[in-house]
């Protein structure tokens, strides 16, 4: 018998209350550390062009797929520590861990690099941990997970050599990278601990700067807990020429593969020379709530998914 809407919403109540607690604790965490909560547009004339992120359009504008560019424009104007909960939209992303409309938490710190941001992520997640049992130990889908700090760091190179037998820093093959990542590398992560995957191939740098002294690697990190990809952190690229070149390549690929014309984010590029050395991260709030609610599906931590909206 299909579940009615009142039945579904009654079933979700415990999780939705816990979700509200997670939001409150995140705000408290950043307030204590003197971060300013900001808000940036959901509809914008230009967004970061990304080969594999398809944006929604709205009356000639794009719905935000991430608040990153606007937040960096604030940093470029002297805002040193900022955070934001923002609604983000990505077409076609629907599954147990995806809804096309979702909640992203981003924060940026002037003067920091990705190592500092990884420490922020560790502290934030352990500080907001909610649920039964001690805070540094949780259970997700039957698997006990030890959250004691620090979490193990693993380079992309080592993870791929171990699980897939090749080095993606030396070979630019994004198709093989994505497939092996999902089918081999991710399943090989230690299930009882978080994994911080660091130093992505330079060809997958996106908006991260390259590692000084190693042009094959980018200062980019991703955090995984219980098989959930939770956060993506960068030492932010501040070189406007290099950024423009990466955007141009992405715009060409998007034009060729999706037939979609994406404008160059000129206002962001104008601000970029003023961007201080900084680090930042985007964290999926829905997935963090899934972890703390021991929920197998994103549908169990949202009142109305795309199918119910």
């Amino acid at each position: 018998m299909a579940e009615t809407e009142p039945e579904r919403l009654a079933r979700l109540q415990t999780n939705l209350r816990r979700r509200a607690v997670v939001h409150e604790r995140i705000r408290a965490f950043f307030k204590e550390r003197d971060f300013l909560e900001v808000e940036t547009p959901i509809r914008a004339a230009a967004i970061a062009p990304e080969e594999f992120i398809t944006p929604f359009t709205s009356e000639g504008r794009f719905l935000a797929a991430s608040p990153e560019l606007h937040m960096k424009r604030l940093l470029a104007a002297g805002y040193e520590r900022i955070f934001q909960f923002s609604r983000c939209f990505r077409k076609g992303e629907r599954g147990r861990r995806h809804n096309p409309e979702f909640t992203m938490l981003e924060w940026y710190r002037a003067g920091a690099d990705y190592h500092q941001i990884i420490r922020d992520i560790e502290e934030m997640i352990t500080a907001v941990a909610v649920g039964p049992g001690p805070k540094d130990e949780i259970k997700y889908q039957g698997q006990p997970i030890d959250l004691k700090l620090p979490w193990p760091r693993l380079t992309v190179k080592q993870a791929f050599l171990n699980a897939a037998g090749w080095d993606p820093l030396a070979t630019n093959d994004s198709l093989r990278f994505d497939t092996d990542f999902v089918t081999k590398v991710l399943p090989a992560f230690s299930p009882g601990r978080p994994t911080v995957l660091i130093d992505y191939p330079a060809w997958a740098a996106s908006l991260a700067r390259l590692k000084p002294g190693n042009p094959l690697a980018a200062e980019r990190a991703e955090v995984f807990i219980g098989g959930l990809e939770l956060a993506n952190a960068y030492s932010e690229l501040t070189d406007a020429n290099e950024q423009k070149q990466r955007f141009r390549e992405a715009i060409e690929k998007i034009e060729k593969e999706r037939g979609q014309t994406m404008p160059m984010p000129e206002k962001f590029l104008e601000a970029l020379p003023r961007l201080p050395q900084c680090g930042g991260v985007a964290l999926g709030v829905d997935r963090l709530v899934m972890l703390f609610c021991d929920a197998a599906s994103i549908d169990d931590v949202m009142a109305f998914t795309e199918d119910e909206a």
Partner: protein
Amino acid sequence: MEIEDVRKNTKIVIDGVLYNIVDVDFTKPGKGRSIYRLRMENMRGSGVIDRTFRSGENVDEARLDTQNEQYLYREGDNYIFMDVKTYDQHPVPGDVLGIKKNFLKEGMEVVMLMYGDEPIDVTLPITIDLKVIETELSTKTATITPQMKSSVVETGYRVDTPSFIKVGDVIKIDTRSGNYVERVSTGK
């Protein structure tokens, strides 16, 4: 069809083999492309396999038709149905029908799912009323928890029923789970 549009219960054909999609696991690593891991069950009844697809890939959706058929009789392991328009008869192996073979009454109409000339599945009503033809004697003592016992309905299917059910009663059975739902009428 595009891989993006494949859902649970979509029917696809790969190398001439017809599959029903049991599960779609969608993963999108980092800034990478979408990866779809499909769990697919061979609809001719032999096993479940996993296959990985990437965004942009296509699969062949199986073109299935439905037609109204009448169930006639059973012959060995085959269940004989007749197209109500053309009077063509087709034998359907018990394996294809699964649990549903237990709820076929002679003369009943069903909707049959066809892949070309091949019957793939029949759609039954969610519940069906069947007469009890055999049952155990109920135990005397009344207890707080309802006692269950084993009964046999007119199609030969054996089902657990409450102890008050008697031969000749008509009972409602859920055709998805095969479980007793309620008594519809008493015998005699």
